[in-house]
């Protein structure tokens, strides 16, 4: 990981998470430097989703600390964590299917009407949303729901974006839009923590990378190092970049 | 194990409690003296059956119906009308029971086919209206049903208190028709309970659970959801009808408040929840506890209230006339304290 001198925007220190009787995170340590895009990789069941949910306070860390922007947010209730400037795109997308696309986005813009320039930019990225603007979001296709989930998270500027597998179910052309969007957001100074299985997409985007296995971080460093090191790729992810598109 | 359809209680304490209850019910006429304990035991049997049949619907199939008492009532009225009209004979009992079962099956199938397609909560409310319509009907058809007053009738000679099949008492208890009637109820309850237990543990029972969990997916797997639900409703209605018939046989009376009233529906719900939904054994525990409480709570409260006389407020609160207050509190507490019912609680303690 980049040896930044300044304190990272988000920092997890020996975080343990239990869900009911199951012990999922076993003392997670990681940091997300400000202004950069950090990828969180790992096999199915490694604990990536659990990590994001723990940060959001949707699951309570049983021990350890989570610091965001110098503040300890480990035990804050979820709304307060969100209000401190974190947006979250869950794996399940959690679209409000009764509400129209417009209403979904209206809700996401907490501080008032969505800035028109930003809205235009978003709808340019995801034109399908414009077409279904006034229809219930439950009727959207799988990929369209994914777009809406992202649009909801970026409807207003936030300090930190937690995104769980955004490219899942997206057509290649949309994956490109998505990558474009994250680039633009990063350029606008937002920090992003991205969980991704699509290593191809990941490799184009990430500045840093964290790899998890069985509830622990097994590797962290810069993306360029990982892209260059085929052996490491095979060891950590089971496949090399070449074998996959 | 075969008898229990390999669905054992799965907890030592639970097994002991169940064995205790069944043993007490079996020996009730000999162990307890007086008519109150026997009435209580008979009522427990009837409600075990009724609650178990409702659990098939609610716990296993996830259907919230408020029309279950309607079938209970049909059973009761079937017996009552037949015995009152056709005289106190076993043929009348058979005719009454069979016609009640037929009517229940048809009604359950119609309600199921017509309305099990709609949203669950919608269905519940429709059944609420249907149940109230049934009560209105029973009251309107007073020439047949006795209206609000209900029907009192005589039982076949073998079940009357005066019938003494044996000259000598057994274990100091003279066997009479009343005791025979009790054992009739007990045996029918046990048999039907075991059948229900088998059904919920059969492949059919699992399909019902699957439908409860995700009806959309069950349909996609090739199960006709409406047909399965309707079948479950019919089975459950039939068992409830039998329970109603037993109730009427025991009371030698049937009326709207006895089998049709909404408060019985509430009692059933509470028994299911206290015992534990989706575990037929819960029906035994729930019904036993509840009927005992209902029979003895007022007496206990009366004792408590006189004992505490003098202390302000407290005697008022546990005055026997305020027993409903405590029943209400019981509703709330039971939902919280035993989210999985008593059976769920006992089973969880066993396996961490």
């Amino acid at each position: 990981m980049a040896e930044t001198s300044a304190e990272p925007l988000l920092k997890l220190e020996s975080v343990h998470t239990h869900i009911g009787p199951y012990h999922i995170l076993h003392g997670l340590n990681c940091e997300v430097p400000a202004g950069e895009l950090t990828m969180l990789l790992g096999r199915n069941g490694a604990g990536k989703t659990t990590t994001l949910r723990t940060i959001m306070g949707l699951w309570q860390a049983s021990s350890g600390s989570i610091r965001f922007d110098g503040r300890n947010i480990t035990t804050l209730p979820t709304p307060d964590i969100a209000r401190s400037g974190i947006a979250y795109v869950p794996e399940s997308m959690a679209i409000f299917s009764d509400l129209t696309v417009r209403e979904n986005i209206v809700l996401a813009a907490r501080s008032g009407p969505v800035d028109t320039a930003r809205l235009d930019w978003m709808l340019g990225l995801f034109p399908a949303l414009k077409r279904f603007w006034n229809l219930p979001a439950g009727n959207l296709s799988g990929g369209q729901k994914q777009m809406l989930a992202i649009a909801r998270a970026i409807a207003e500027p936030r300090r930190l974006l937690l995104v769980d597998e955004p490219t899942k179910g997206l057509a290649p052309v949309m994956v490109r839009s998505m990558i474009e969007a994250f680039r633009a957001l990063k350029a606008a100074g937002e920090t992003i923590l991205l969980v991704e299985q699509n290593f191809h997409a990941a490799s184009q985007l990430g500045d840093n990378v964290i790899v998890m296995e069985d509830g622990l971080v097994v590797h962290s460093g810069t993306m360029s190092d990982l892209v260059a090191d085929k052996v490491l790729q095979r060891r950590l992810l089971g496949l090399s970049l070449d074998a996959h598109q | 194990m075969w008898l229990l359809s390999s669905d054992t209680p799965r907890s030592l304490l639970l097994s002991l409690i169940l064995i205790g209850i069944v043993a007490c019910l079996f020996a009730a006429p000999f162990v307890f003296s007086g008519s109150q304990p026997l009435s209580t035991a008979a009522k427990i049997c009837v409600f075990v059956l009724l609650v178990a049949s409702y659990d098939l619907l609610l716990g296993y199939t996830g259907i919230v119906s408020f029309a279950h008492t309607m079938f209970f009532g049909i059973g009761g009225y079937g017996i009552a009308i037949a015995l009152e009209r056709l005289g106190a004979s076993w043929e009348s009992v058979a005719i009454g029971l069979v016609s009640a079962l037929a009517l229940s099956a048809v009604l359950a199938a119609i309600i199921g086919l017509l309305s099990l397609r709609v949203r669950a909560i919608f269905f519940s409310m429709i059944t609420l209206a249907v149940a109230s319509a049934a009560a209105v009907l029973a009251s309107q058809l007073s020439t047949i049903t006795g209206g609000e007053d209900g029907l009192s009738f005589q039982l076949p000679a073998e079940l009357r208190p005066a019938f003494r099949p044996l000259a000598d008492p057994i274990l100091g208890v003279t066997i009479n028709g009343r005791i025979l009637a009790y054992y009739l109820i007990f045996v029918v309850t046990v048999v039907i309970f075991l059948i229900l237990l088998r059904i919920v543990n059969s492949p059919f029972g699992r399909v019902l659970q699957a439908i409860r969990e995700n009806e959309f997916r069950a349909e996609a797997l090739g199960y006709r959801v409406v047909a399965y639900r309707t079948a479950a409703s019919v089975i459950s209605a039939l068992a409830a009808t039998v329970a109603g018939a037993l109730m009427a046989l025991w009371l030698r009376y049937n009326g709207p408040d006895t089998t049709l009233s909404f408060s019985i529906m509430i009692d059933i719900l509470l028994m299911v929840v206290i015992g534990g939904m989706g575990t037929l054994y819960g029906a035994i525990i729930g019904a036993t506890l509840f009927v005992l409480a209902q029979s003895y709570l007022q007496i206990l409260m009366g004792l408590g209230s006189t004992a505490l006389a003098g202390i302000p407020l407290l005697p008022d609160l546990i005055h026997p006339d305020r027993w409903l207050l405590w029943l209400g509190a019981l509703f709330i507490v039971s939902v919280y304290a035993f989210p999985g019912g008593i059976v769920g609680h006992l089973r969880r303690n066993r396996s961490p």
Partner: protein
Amino acid sequence: MSDVAADAANPPLLPRSRTDWLPLILVPVLALAVLPLIGDVSSWVTLTIAGLAMGMMIFLMASGLTLVFGLMDIINFGHGVFISLGAYATLLVLGPLAGWASANSVALNLALLLLCIVVAMVLTGLVGAVFERVIVRPVYGNHLKQILVTMGGLIVTEQAIHAIWGASPIPIPLPETLRGAFVLGDIVMERYRVVAIGIGLLVFAAMQLLLNRTRIGLLIRAGVENPEMVEALGYRIRRLFVSVFVAGSALAGLGGVMWAFYRQTLTAGMGMEVMVLVFIVIIIGGLGSVGGCFVGSVLVALVANYVGFLAPKLALISNILVMALVLIWRPQGLFPVARR
């Protein structure tokens, strides 16, 4: 992005689904259709106005339930006791201000009614808050447990009413000037019913405004579907849920006051007695739809009056008949609220 993709992805905007007028026309059509059957115009007017007013009172009693259900997906079987509680709350006002009721002044009488409504709404709102906190909160999302728990709450509250105000029915006076009727030729309009129509329309309009013109409605609907996500968007959904529940209870209280003055006798079970009717109305309306509840109430009350006049034998089942017919026509109620 290439032109092809842009074109393909830029078809015209789809319109929002249109308002459904059919159920709204139903009421006037029905009213006109029975006119020839009744024959006598003055009887028809009398029955129609009385029915409208009764519909408003039913709506006031049912609206809170459908609001709480529609927004929060909570089925409150204890709703009836809030109606009773609202009714009993009038005693708090009528006790000290008995003079206002017997005074022969429209202003004073109406002020009294208003005061009763305010007191009742505050009281039922408070009890509603306690209800939500203690009873309902832990069972969000589970209809069955909601039914049980609220039923328990109902019994406890009803017993509390017994304990506080006694078991005997309590007569209450309808304020002097609201008694009796306006007579125009052969048409009679009870004064109180005219007041009820006014209040009913007012509440309906206020609810529509609040739900459709603010984001509160959205937020709650979203919160019911996925409270976690709403919290992750930064909203404190709990507080909102409490407020909706309180509002629903307060509306029940309002309905209770109106119902109390209509019946002029208070019993602890009076709220429970109307619950089947209330349920029928909200089923007809389409569970959770305030507009549907409004139309459903008026429909049920009008039909009850017409049938009661034309074929009293059928009056007993007229409600269930209306429900059955509506459900055959629209199995999800007049204005189905999409969910799941």
